[in-house]
């Protein structure tokens, strides 16, 4: 049930909220559990059992980890000091094995459902070229809703319990709710138990402000999704699907518009999710923080899909960096390199895992793997070449504190991100290469007519729609700018005189009703990230 349907917004969310607030606070979580199960059953039916199994694995694993720790703590004080260390190390080894086993099982399910056919088809190609007769059969696999998101949350839970960042949850159903909670199941944010689990455990009483702010965030998310993102879909679909027909400005516009579309689509979805949760009194973590104000690709990834970047840092980057092999590598680097490279080289090597993980997580296609590698190369190069850039800047006497330099960095990052988005959206890796080249071939309108005419014929676009798009970009820019300056927009609106405030609220709702891309001719357009 996509969040951008009237069915979700009116009967589903409405009824859930009503029953939730009619229940005594200590039982309210059960309403969320039932609503989430219903939501999941509608979307994925029997596949809910896969999610239940994942919950069972991490629930049992975490209890086992805590049992090991409890046993150690019970005997700890009776042990002589030298034995304590040994017992602790044994307990940690045992817990490490539990985490490993749990991760193998739950990641195994994800890999099997998501990557089996991709790996199989590539192995088949390899065997064919080696003249080996064997073939891996393709399977028709259906992915359970949100598996890419809840699996990562499940891994974080079991790991955090072993790292003593959160206690093990004894109630299976509370843990089940943490994974299946309907606002986050489709597109995240990828949650941590210590945050969302705690929020779900807290007894929330009706809070007028939270309720209203939640509703407002939903409306803003809808504007982003059903007005801004969905109207752009026609142009993007046309340019990326028939990329061979287009070149020059058309492709460049296609790339820029797609970047805006995916931002609005994903941020819109997360805002609807965060708004829905907030109406229940539950806060979700931020997933975007004005990513296009970033001055570097690294910063972009700290502002874009924040929960994925943070997850990769905590559960891929740190384990790799702290592994024995990397400790040795680090030592060796310190011996043979200067201080800067001794730190940069091992870090960059560990980052390869992060970026491959990032690419693969998005989907079982080479273009996604390349997408990860693309960012890795950029980050690796910028790290390695930093001393060189420093020297160049010093020689050219560039004052890095000046605003112009800051703007240059933002623009440079914007270009890097857009190229990444083109790779991400292209039909395949070959198409991405073709489009990147065709950008430099001037657009010869030929049979398609001028840009505007072409747009009209092929995409129902016209000058007014282009103008609307510019207005949307400007609006999103100023909203981002306000956030950058620490202005809380919803609070600012709430402080306005009643007429103005109501005009904004009503205008926003009516804008969704009138300009929303729903009904005949649309079908609701799926959220892009729900497909990952």
């Amino acid at each position, binding site marked *: 049930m996509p969040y951008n349907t*009237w*069915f979700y917004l009116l009967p589903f969310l409405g009824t859930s909220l009503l029953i939730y607030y009619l229940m005594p606070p200590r039982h309210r979580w059960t309403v969320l559990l039932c609503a989430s199960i219903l939501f999941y059953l509608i979307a994925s039916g029997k596949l809910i059992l896969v999610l239940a199994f994942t919950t069972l694995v991490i629930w049992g694993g975490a209890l086992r980890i805590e049992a090991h720790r409890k046993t150690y703590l019970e005997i700890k004080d009776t042990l002589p000091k030298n034995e304590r260390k040994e017992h602790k190390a044994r307990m940690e080894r045992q817990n490490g094995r539990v985490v490993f086993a749990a991760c193998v099982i739950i990641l195994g399910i994800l890999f099997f459902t998501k990557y089996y056919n991709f790996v199989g088809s590539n192995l088949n190609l390899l065997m064919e070229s080696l003249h080996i007769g064997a073939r891996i059969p393709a399977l028709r696999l259906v992915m359970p809703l949100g598996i890419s998101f809840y699996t990562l949350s499940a891994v974080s839970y079991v790991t955090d319990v072993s790292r003593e960042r959160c206690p093990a949850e004894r109630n299976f159903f509370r843990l089940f709710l943490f994974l299946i909670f309907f606002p986050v199941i489709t597109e995240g944010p990828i949650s941590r138990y210590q945050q969302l689990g705690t929020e779900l455990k807290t007894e929330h009483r009706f809070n*007028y402000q939270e309720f209203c702010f939640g509703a407002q965030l939903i409306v803003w998310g809808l504007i982003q999704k059903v007005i801004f993102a969905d109207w752009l879909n026609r142009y993007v679909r046309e340019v990326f699907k028939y990329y061979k027909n287009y070149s020059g400005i058309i492709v460049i516009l296609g790339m820029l518009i797609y970047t805006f579309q995916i931002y609005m689509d994903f941020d819109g979805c997360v805002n609807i999710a965060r708004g829905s949760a907030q109406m229940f009194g539950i806060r979700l973590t931020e997933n975007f923080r004005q990513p296009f104000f970033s001055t570097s690709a690294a910063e972009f990834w700290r502002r874009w899909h924040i929960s994925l970047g943070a997850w990769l840092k905590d559960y891929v980057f740190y384990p790799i960096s702290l592994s024995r092999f990397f400790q040795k590598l680090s030592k060796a680097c310190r011996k043979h390199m200067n201080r800067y490279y001794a730190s940069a080289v091992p870090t960059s090597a560990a980052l390869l895992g992060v970026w491959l993980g990032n690419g693969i997580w998005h989907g079982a296609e080479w273009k996604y793997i390349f997408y990860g590698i693309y960012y890795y190369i950029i980050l690796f190069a910028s790290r390695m070449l930093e001393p060189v850039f420093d020297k160049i800047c010093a020689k050219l006497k560039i004052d890095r504190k000046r605003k112009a330099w800051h703007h240059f960095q933002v623009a440079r990052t914007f270009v890097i991100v857009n190229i990444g988005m083109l790779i991400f959206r292209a039909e395949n890796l070959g198409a991405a290469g073709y489009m990147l080249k065709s950008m430099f071939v001037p657009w010869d309108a030929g049979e398609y007519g001028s840009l505007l005419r072409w747009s009209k014929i092929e995409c129902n676009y016209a000058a007014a729609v282009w103008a609307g798009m510019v207005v949307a970009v400007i609006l999103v820019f100023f909203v981002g700018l306000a956030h950058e300056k620490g202005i809380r927009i919803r609070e600012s609106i709430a402080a306005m005189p*009643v007429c103005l405030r109501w005009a904004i609220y009503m205008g926003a709702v*009516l804008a969704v009703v*009138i*300009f929303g891309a729903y*009904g005949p001719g649309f079908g609701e357009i799926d959220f892009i990230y729900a497909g990952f």
Partner: protein
Amino acid sequence: MKPEGKRRYFLFFLILAAGIVLLSAGAELLARTNPERLRTRNLNYSLLKKEKENSIDVLVAGDSESYSSVSPMDLWEKFGITAYDIGQSGQQIQGTYYMLKTAFQTQSPKLVLLEGNTIFRNPGELKYFENLLLEELGYYVPVFRYHNMWETFVTGERDWRVTYKGFKIRTKIDPYMDGDYMVETEKSKDISPFVEKYLKKIIRLCEAHGAELMLYSAPSPKNHTFKRHNKLMEISEETGIPYLDLNMRIDELKILWDEDSLDGGDHLNLSGAVKVTDWLGDYLTDQYDLPDHRGDDQYADWDALLVEYRKAVEEETAEDASDEDETDEADLEA
């Protein structure tokens, strides 16, 4: 932020509701005065409401199979029957229900022909509920239905297709070549409980408005099967509603699959529709008490439209129709 207070809260939603009602009235008016701005799918609602009150005796309802099989202008010319195709491409049963409700607001038809293909549509319960909600919203609050009009006003685009009492002239030929498709069996095709519920609602709605209901299946090798035939026969026996399966009368209808198929056996083209209409006209005048309005001054506009229709048919037939893709986007769903 303090609670607005019950009164203010009430006032807020009252103003919002008033805004939506006003917008709905505006949308309804715009749809009526500028039907060419509407998407084809919504066009029927608006044009239907523009028909002279109580002037239509037969409504043809269902998905694209319905409006591809009956040509009201031919029915008028040859039998004097006033009919209207209220079907929509890919229409689901709840859509049929609300379309009929819309029709009954201004018309008192004597007969409703319900094409059976819509009964077998099964997009899943969730989609049914989602679409039901959209239909309900669209029926009671028209801005939800017509809201996309802003696009055609802004862009000057047209999604407009001239229809003749809901019928579209489509002359393209794409033959059906796979032979006999009505292979006898005793099995019958299941239908969703949701469809069953809405079928009952349609029956009650027709009863309440004094209209007789008749089920029929348009010739469609791609969609129709003997299992479907059996199911519709069962429904007919259970409810007492007559059922006419035209797929069992292909020879009588003189349908030739290399001439009368629009898209490889899915829908009928103009020539197929005319053949079905001719046969159906005889059948309906024989079975039902339908008045012949020809010569009645009240129906002079039908004669005027007939002239336009004939001219358009001539033009369309003269063109090399096969060059055109005449299948509506949404027909592909059918």
